[in-house]
């Protein structure tokens, strides 16, 4: 049905022409689902835009053929392409809230597509739009017709995007990172819905994602892309069990999944023995009845509803939950950037909850509690180079300057594996992994006792995530730090943490040793979280796994 041959997509940039896709070929038959997997910059999204011919300015198909049911899409006129887009091939995107027009009613946005392709007239457009909303299982569709995107949750917005994409019964759906940025339970709901809809309508689909597990679970065939080329492709099950290309192997290894140790995420040759790590007895942090209430538009909103837990010296505790559960609020209170409404935070024997957040910066304990922020890019000052970013806490809180400062920054760069020559670079000249290292180096600059890691790997590719997680494990052992690891992904948290707290609606619903919580979850919500994680097929036949089982 769809046939792509030697497709090359080039972009004109200031530094000359760049080829984002370098000669890829694949076929798709009716009813088939193809997963295209790759890390950022692999050209997977560009491929899909090229198919739809909606490349950004400066991008163009420079060679190759795209044939859609015998029609040449590369040379088709723009008018003909418009008739195909949305009617025969349609697309859903990542970040669904941004993918919808923020100031137009969602029902109207569906109508626009229906009217454009002549699937409805002025009179029945509304009814058909409501029908489309019902098809994606939006409850109370008639009322939701009048909603604006900002009034809906991320998962709901993605359903609306799907409704727009499927309104005209296309034959092919391209899903470009459809669940990135959504919670794991929402991800499952959305993906299950997509699978159900495409199989019910006998559609084909291309699922583009960085998540191997997700792609493998929801597609028949996989193609792994790297640097604009397909390095390996095959049926999902066989590809996972017997990956031939080293890159595919590396990707499979780096994907966090049940049963593997943190070192096993790394390529085999990089697996050094994991440093020993044993939590002490002494309580470093004691949180008692912590609460936070925000003044909302429609009355107060209680984000954290009284939680208590202890963190012992040298322990790593994971705080897991979906967006809106209060985990970020909790971490902001612990790092003393936000004042709690009630409760105590006992750090090393004394309560620090009573010290106002704006005064804590001058407290001698400021340097002992530090944080690694979620977005490595946004949390770095774009006008400071890596050296200055790392040196900032040393100057402000450590009172260092001159040669001593330079030596310490070099030491930190070495510790976090940041090559010394990158210190003079600015954030935009660094890769995601390098920026993460700068963020970590900055956080450990003052030798903190307690480090809060707020989703430090959420924005990173899996292979980089594997490296950063291992770096954090090494640092913990070397510097004897205590971690609070905040994340939405139990599978990631488990790798690093001894103890897990599962949070929901401002309350801790389950707490216990990581292994116990993973294997034998008590609370239904924990079980739901675990069940929602994508399960790649035949995982138990992975070589790494068999070795472990043999042990």
């Amino acid at each position, binding site marked *: 049905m769809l046939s792509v041959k030697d497709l090359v997509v080039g972009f004109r940039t200031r530094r000359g022409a760049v080829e984002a896709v370098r000669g890829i070929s694949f076929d798709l038959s009716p009813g088939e689902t193809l997963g295209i997997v790759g890390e950022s910059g692999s050209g997977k999204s560009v491929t899909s835009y090229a198919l739809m011919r909606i490349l950004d300015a400066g991008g163009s198909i420079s060679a190759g053929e795209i044939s859609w049911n015998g029609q040449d899409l590369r040379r088709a006129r723009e008018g003909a392409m418009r008739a195909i887009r*949305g009617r025969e091939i*349609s697309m859903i995107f990542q970040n669904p809230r941004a993918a919808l027009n923020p100031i137009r009613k969602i029902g109207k946005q569906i109508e*626009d597509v229906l009217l454009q392709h002549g699937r409805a007239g002025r009179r029945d457009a509304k009814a058909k739009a409501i029908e489309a909303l019902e098809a994606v299982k939006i409850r109370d569709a008639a009322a939701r017709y009048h909603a604006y995107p900002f009034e809906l949750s991320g998962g709901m917005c993605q359903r609306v995007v799907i409704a727009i994409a499927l309104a005209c019964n296309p034959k092919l759906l391209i899903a470009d990172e459809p669940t990135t940025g959504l919670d794991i339970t929402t991800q499952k709901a959305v993906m299950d819905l997509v699978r159900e809809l495409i199989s019910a309508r006998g559609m084909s689909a291309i699922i583009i994602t960085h998540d191997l597990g997700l792609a493998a679970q929801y597609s028949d065939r996989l193609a792994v892309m790297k640097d604009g080329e397909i390095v390996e492709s095959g049926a999902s099950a066989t590809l996972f069990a017997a990956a031939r290309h080293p890159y595919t192997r590396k990707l499979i290894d780096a994907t966090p999944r049940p049963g593997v140790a943190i070192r096993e995420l790394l390529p085999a040759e990089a697996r050094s023995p994991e440093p020993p790590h044993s939590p002490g007895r002494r309580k470093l942090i004691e949180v008692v009845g912590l609460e936070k209430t925000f003044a909302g538009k429609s009355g107060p909103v209680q984000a954290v509803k009284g939680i208590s837990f202890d963190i012992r010296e040298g322990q790593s505790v994971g705080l897991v939950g979906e967006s809106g559960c209060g985990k970020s609020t909790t971490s902001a209170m612990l790092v003393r950037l936000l004042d709690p409404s009630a409760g105590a935070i006992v750090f090393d024997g004394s309560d620090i909850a009573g010290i106002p957040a704006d005064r804590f910066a001058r407290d001698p304990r400021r340097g002992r509690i530090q944080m690694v922020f979620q977005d490595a890019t946004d949390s770095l000052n774009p006008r400071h180079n890596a050296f200055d970013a790392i040196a900032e806490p040393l100057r402000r809180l450590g009172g260092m300057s001159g040669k001593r400062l330079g030596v310490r920054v070099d030491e930190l760069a070495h510790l976090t594996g940041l090559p010394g020559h990158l210190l003079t670079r600015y954030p935009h000249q660094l890769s995601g992994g390098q920026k993460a290292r700068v963020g970590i180096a900055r956080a450990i600059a003052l030798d903190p006792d307690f480090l809060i890691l707020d989703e430090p790997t959420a924005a990173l590719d899996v292979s980089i995530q594997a490296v950063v997680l291992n770096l954090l494990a090494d640092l913990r052992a070397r510097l004897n730090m205590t971690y609070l690891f905040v994340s939405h992904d139990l599978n990631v948290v488990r790798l690093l943490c001894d103890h897990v707290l599962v949070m929901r609606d401002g309350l801790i619903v389950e707490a216990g040793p990581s292994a116990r919580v993973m294997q034998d979850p008590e609370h239904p919500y924990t079980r739901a979280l675990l069940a929602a994680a994508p399960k790649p097929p035949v995982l138990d036949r992975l070589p790494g796994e068999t070795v472990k089982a043999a042990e």
Partner: protein
Amino acid sequence: MAGRGHPVLWRLAQTIPVIAGVVVISFILTRALPGDPAVQFAGLAATPESIAQVREALGLDKPLIQQFLIYCGALLQGDLGRSVVTGQPVVTDLAMRLPASLELTLTALLLACLVAIPLGLLAAVHQGSWIDQLCRVVVTAGVSLPTFFTGILLIYVFYYLLGWAPSPLGRLDFIYFDPPRVTGFHLIDTLIDGDTETFFGALRQIALPAITLALFTLAPIARMTRAAMLGALSSDYIRTARAAGLSPSKVLFGYAFRNALLPVVTTLGMVFSFVLGANVLVEKVFAWPGIGSYAVEALVQSDYAAVQGFVLAMALLFVLLNLLIDLSYALIDPRIGFSAK
């Protein structure tokens, strides 16, 4: 959106402290200025006695607090006092001159929008093309040429050299009669009256000053339209709309432009405020009987009542303008509710 009336009233109520502040500040500032109105008013041949007499007549001999209370009392009855220079009540003066300024400003803004918004839009759509370059040239020229210069240049070319424009002396040539006053806007009043000949007379008269002002205001509007459109066009929802096969015009106007309108409206509000100030020069060059030249005159003559009246009128105008802008925000963007401050 039910119950929109109530938040609007609340929004209006919020402006009361602003107005009160303006009343106090304008009162104090006019008194703080150097110059004595009694001396001005008494004339060149005044003796100390006659000046004292005038001071008493104007009530300027009373303590400041008392003067302020008297002023406020009169204000509440809609009495802004009497201008020492024109001898007329300030309210009458303002009512005469404010429409003239507003007519000029609004015409100029309308003209600027008609040129600047399509220009900015086209520049954004065809980024890097000749129209984008044209937009850049117009924007740079617009901000760098002062209004009195463009005004005089236009007069020189179109009145003196070509003779297309009438003499730059006010709102209407003396051969026409002022239209019966309804709105105070000559262009509208003449049409209401059905007097097309006077309408064209007024139009010819307003053309040059309006173009002068428009050239000046065009720049920020065109620039903001271009920037806002570029932002909107590169956003995710435009990609969705294109992927759904919507027609280019629908994508451009239905999706991108409406989203880009918000910053454009903000700019319009700002431009309107500073144009009312920039008016003074244009009004002087074209002998336009507007509020700007009136205020400058009053300030030079230490005409307290007139200056205060002018400041107050401007403050009210800005409050009204901001209210209108806020209301149009809410119309354009459903995310902005009045309850959400």
